[in-house]
């Protein structure tokens, strides 16, 4: 069968394959996931200790608005009509994951700032002193009083953010490789794993370091399991989903997926972490760096793979 567009429709970024979303979106999805991971892990640490404490997980909270800000800037770069960016906030479209996402992001930002304000006396005394000088002690006191509530809210928002980054893509029925509900959990787990890796990297406490290494091993294993489920679901799905699965089973992205996403991005870091736990010496940053790299590669892969799959083969 020969089926093609005879009029050489070459609409930019649509033909011959969809390339509307490039590195900007991949970077945003990665940083969004990392934000979710850091926020959840930091908030969980607060909840677990029932107080603010100078753990790496809590100290890293200070980076969440920054990381998210960079991510949002990357997303902003992707907009073709930038001066209309405010339009995201003049409405709420219940059917649009992107609309949900923009409102979630709007909530994550202040909540994460409050959580930082509530923990900084312990985690970043310098920052606290600076805030005090700027007359922001009230903010800190306000947050400290409500720290447990803020932490619970942060976990909830972090989960929403992490899942949203996946749902954003999985809601597109038009792109079979994205169109699987498991993508939300995968992105959440991947975001958590990235967060755990960063905590593990930044931790100065050996116990905490090993704890987050162990957590990360679990998360990556779980992520691999979920990705496996995703592919099994796809490969055993209807025709279009099967065609999407073919992308990594002999198709265009086979090498990309198995070598870069699976081996370098997931198996290699998890092996490094396991070796590390077993006491094999290695530089402290190696494993977490690979985890973070793997998270980024995974976002690039998913963004590209989805755009390569379609309902219509021309």
């Amino acid at each position: 069968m020969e089926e093609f567009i005879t009029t050489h429709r070459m609409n930019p970024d649509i033909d011959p394959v969809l390339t509307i979303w490039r590195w900007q979106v991949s970077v945003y999805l990665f940083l969004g996931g990392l934000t979710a991971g850091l926020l959840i892990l930091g908030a969980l640490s607060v909840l677990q200790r029932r107080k603010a404490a100078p753990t790496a997980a809590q100290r890293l909270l200070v980076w969440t608005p920054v990381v998210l800000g960079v991510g949002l800037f990357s997303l902003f770069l992707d907009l073709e009509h930038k001066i209309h960016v405010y339009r995201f906030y003049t409405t709420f479209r219940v059917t649009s994951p992107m609309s949900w996402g923009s409102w979630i992001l709007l909530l994550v930002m202040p909540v994460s700032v409050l959580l930082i304000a509530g923990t900084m006396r312990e985690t970043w005394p310098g920052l606290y002193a600076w805030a005090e000088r700027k007359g922001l002690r009230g903010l800190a006191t306000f947050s400290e009083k409500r720290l447990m509530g803020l932490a619970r809210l942060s976990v909830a928002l972090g989960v929403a953010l992490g899942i949203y980054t996946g749902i954003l893509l999985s809601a597109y029925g038009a792109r079979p490789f994205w169109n699987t509900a498991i993508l939300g959990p995968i992105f959440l787990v991947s975001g958590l794993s990235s967060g755990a890796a960063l905590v593990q990297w930044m931790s100065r406490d050996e116990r905490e370091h090993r704890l987050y290494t162990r957590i990360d091993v679990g998360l990556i294993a779980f992520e691999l399991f979920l990705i496996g489920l995703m592919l099994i679901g796809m490969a055993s799905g209807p025709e279009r989903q099967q065609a999407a699965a073919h992308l990594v089973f002999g198709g265009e992205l086979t090498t990309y997926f198995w070598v870069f996403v699976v081996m370098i991005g997931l198996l290699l870091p998890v092996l490094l972490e396991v070796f590390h736990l077993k006491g094999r010496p290695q530089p402290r940053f190696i494993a977490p760096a690979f985890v973070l790299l793997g998270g980024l590669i995974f976002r690039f892969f998913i963004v590209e793979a989805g755009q390569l799959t379609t309902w219509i083969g021309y």
Partner: protein
Amino acid sequence: MAAKKRYAMVIDTKLCIGCGDCVVACKMENEVPEGFCRDWIVESVTGVFPNLHMEYRSERCNHCSNPPCVHACPTGASFVDDESNITLVDPDMCTGCKACIAACPYDARYVRPEGYVSKCTFCIHRVREGLDPACVASCPTHCMHFGDLNDPESNVSKLLESRPFKVLAPEAGTEPNVYYLI
């Protein structure tokens, strides 16, 4: 307000010769920028020489009754005109996020050089005046028909009653309103 319409296009693949007049007529009427197309022709050949079947289809936005692009739009720039069931884009609300493009299984949308998303409008500026869309009005084979499916007496309703037809990617669940007589 006038009775609610459900505009649809019915294209007879038995007559379409794939000449692309619809594509050019659209480009001229709507001043579609150079390098962009709102409609296009697909040639589909099945079989092995000399037992062959060929179908031409003039394709465009399907103005779906369940439009994933409208559902995906975070700002409400993509909307369905309540009166006509035509899917339109309000350029002043569009951020160029391209969610609608990702959502469209037919790849019918594109980003104009100015940064907002555009696509087939079913030439509603003509339709409102009782004219056919430019593509339909130009087709030398008369294989394209346009009308209101809510009107059982319309040309398109009658054609769909009397002839076998198909739509593109019905499995996508978009309930398209461009029909192909087969």
